[in-house]
């Protein structure tokens, strides 16, 4: 009963949020000077220009276009791309999405795993050389832009050493053979995860280690190892659980810089190009779909919370 009410409430909020996001995106695009066709029609005769504008409905007033677009969204019809003729948002996402998702997931798995291990190391060896090293590199990795790392990796491991291909991406369905193409982009994108997860976990663990229940655990005669494994870790993973789903959602949106540097046919590159070309249908469609995924992920986070931390059980149980 309670749970059902909770879910219904969440869904209502999600729909309202999507509506606001879609409207804001639409009007922001409408406010920008020029449109998707202005560059193309420069040298065309007026009659052709008018027909082109009529085809995409760009000749109508803003409010009318807004209602047509929103009505389309309601039916799941995002419309046709203006710059890539004949392509729809669904096609583009289903084609480019998996590429960005594979890269993103590889980056995240590597980054989060290393980040968690380093975070534990820094917390357990607090104040030591190791702690200093982890924190020093975390700050460094967060401060240096991804683009720099991507170019550096490319120069050293592809250029100088020639261990990996300079650019490119495995063709569809080629999971193992093309793996070497994914190595450098994966490393280039995982540093952010390492840095933020290591610091997050370290801070969280130190906080938990200061709690009274850790004294209780020690007073039972448990070894430091046992205290950390059984009492510290689970409690300090709560902030990690909050951030993790957001990272997963980020995966599929792709990274513009890394995709550009390594010529990867992913969503990130495509999305940025669409914005630059003011391709309203693509931008609207991608924004709404990606927002919906984000919102869904946040919802999953809330549910996950209650699994890790029994204090936040939604239905309240029989206490």
């Amino acid at each position, binding site marked *: 009963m309670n749970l059902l009410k909770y879910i219904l409430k969440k869904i209502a909020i999600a729909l309202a949020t999507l509506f606001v996001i879609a409207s804001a995106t639409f009007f922001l695009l409408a406010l920008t000077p020029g449109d998707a066709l202005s560059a193309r029609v420069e040298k065309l005769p007026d009659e052709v220009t008018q027909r082109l504008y009529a085809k995409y409905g760009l000749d109508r007033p803003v409010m009318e276009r807004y209602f047509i677009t929103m009505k389309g969204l309601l039916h799941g019809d995002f419309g046709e791309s203006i710059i890539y003729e004949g392509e729809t948002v669904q096609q583009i996402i289903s084609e480019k999405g998996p590429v960005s998702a594979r890269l993103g997931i590889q980056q995240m798995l590597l980054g989060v795993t290393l980040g968690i291990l380093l975070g534990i190391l820094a917390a357990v060896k607090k104040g030591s050389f190791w702690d200093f090293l982890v924190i020093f590199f975390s700050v460094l990795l967060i401060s240096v832009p991804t683009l720099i790392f991507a170019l550096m990796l490319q120069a050293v491991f592809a250029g100088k050493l020639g261990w990996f291909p300079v650019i490119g991406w495995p063709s569809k369905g080629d999971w193992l053979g093309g793996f070497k193409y994914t190595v450098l982009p994966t490393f280039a994108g995982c540093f952010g995860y390492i840095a933020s997860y290591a610091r997050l976990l370290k801070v969280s663990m130190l906080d938990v280690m200061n*709690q*009274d*229940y850790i*004294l*209780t*655990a*020690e*007073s*039972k*005669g*448990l*070894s430091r190892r046992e205290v950390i494994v*059984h*009492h510290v870790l*689970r*409690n300090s993973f709560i902030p990690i659980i909050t951030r993790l789903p957001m990272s997963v959602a980020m995966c599929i949106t792709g990274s513009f810089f890394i995709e550009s540097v390594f010529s990867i046919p992913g969503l990130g590159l495509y999305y940025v190009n669409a914005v630059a070309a003011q391709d309203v249908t693509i931008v609207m469609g991608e924004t709404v779909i990606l927002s919906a995924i984000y919102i869904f992920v946040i919802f999953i986070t809330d549910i996950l919370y209650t699994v*890790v*931390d*029994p*204090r936040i059980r939604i239905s309240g*149980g029989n*206490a």
Partner: protein
Amino acid sequence: MSKELLKVENLKVTYNTYAGQVQAVRGVSFSLDKGETLALVGESGCGKSVTARSIMQLVHEPGKIVEGSKILFEGKNVAEYDQKELAAFRGKDAAIIFQDAMASLNPTMTVGKQIVENILHHNKVSKKEAKARAVDLLNKVGINNPEQRFKQYPHELSGGMRQRVMIAIAFANDPKLLIADEPTTALDVTIQDQIIELIRKLKDERDASIILITHDLGVVAGIADRVAVMYGGVIVESGSASDIFYHAKHPYTKALHDAVPRVDEVSGKELVSIAGAPPDLINPPAGCPFNTRCKYCMNICKKEVPPTMKFGEGHEAACFLHVLDGLPEDAAFLKD
């Protein structure tokens, strides 16, 4: 064999802070016999909790037990225990319960598991056997439906029940020594009595010794055999409960009694407090720690540390007033 279970000698604990080194405990000595209950009383910040934690070796960075401090448990210095000895000592020989049971229980572990953990660590028994013992313990500490409570998390229990769970954890391996660090401070008055009564009952059944830390003299009167009064990181007076309650020799002890409101007093009378604030333990005052607040402070009290004077069997107080041939007239009440 001596009856002595624990002897603390010249315990000193310091905390390094940005403001300077806090001398939280400045040379505390006391002993505890088997089956005895010793109350450590004093106001906040006098070093009583730190003393308690030192016995369990639970003083962590930035805190440090100063070398030369001796904590003799059955004649062996706890401070020199190796990892293995310490792991066997904690939870088996000695157990501790804290003021805030909610904060002292792991919020993401069922209470049953937290008890079982202590049983499994010190006994070679199966998980099933450990669970049966834990349920039995929950029953013994007065928790209804122990089978069901076993599976619950700390936040699902009331404050009193949580403290009962802590007591169950503490008594899981029949410890010889129980340290109770303000076990009732966070509880309702009605629950306080029940908890103290429970601790006393379990102690009598198992012949354990107790160090009870409190600032509540009412609690002390109910349970303590002996009392040590702490002030500014040292023990200023110690003796049997009746010595401390009826024949207090130290002006601080006396002031503590005066500060307890009495039910039979005329209503509307102002509550008595001890003027001034406890000493700064980063720069402890020279001489007697109480000299800044003492009504009878003399010149010597500000220069010299008062000697410990003995008054009959086990009753001691550190105060210059008793060094004089005759007590000054205005301190004559300290005579009896």
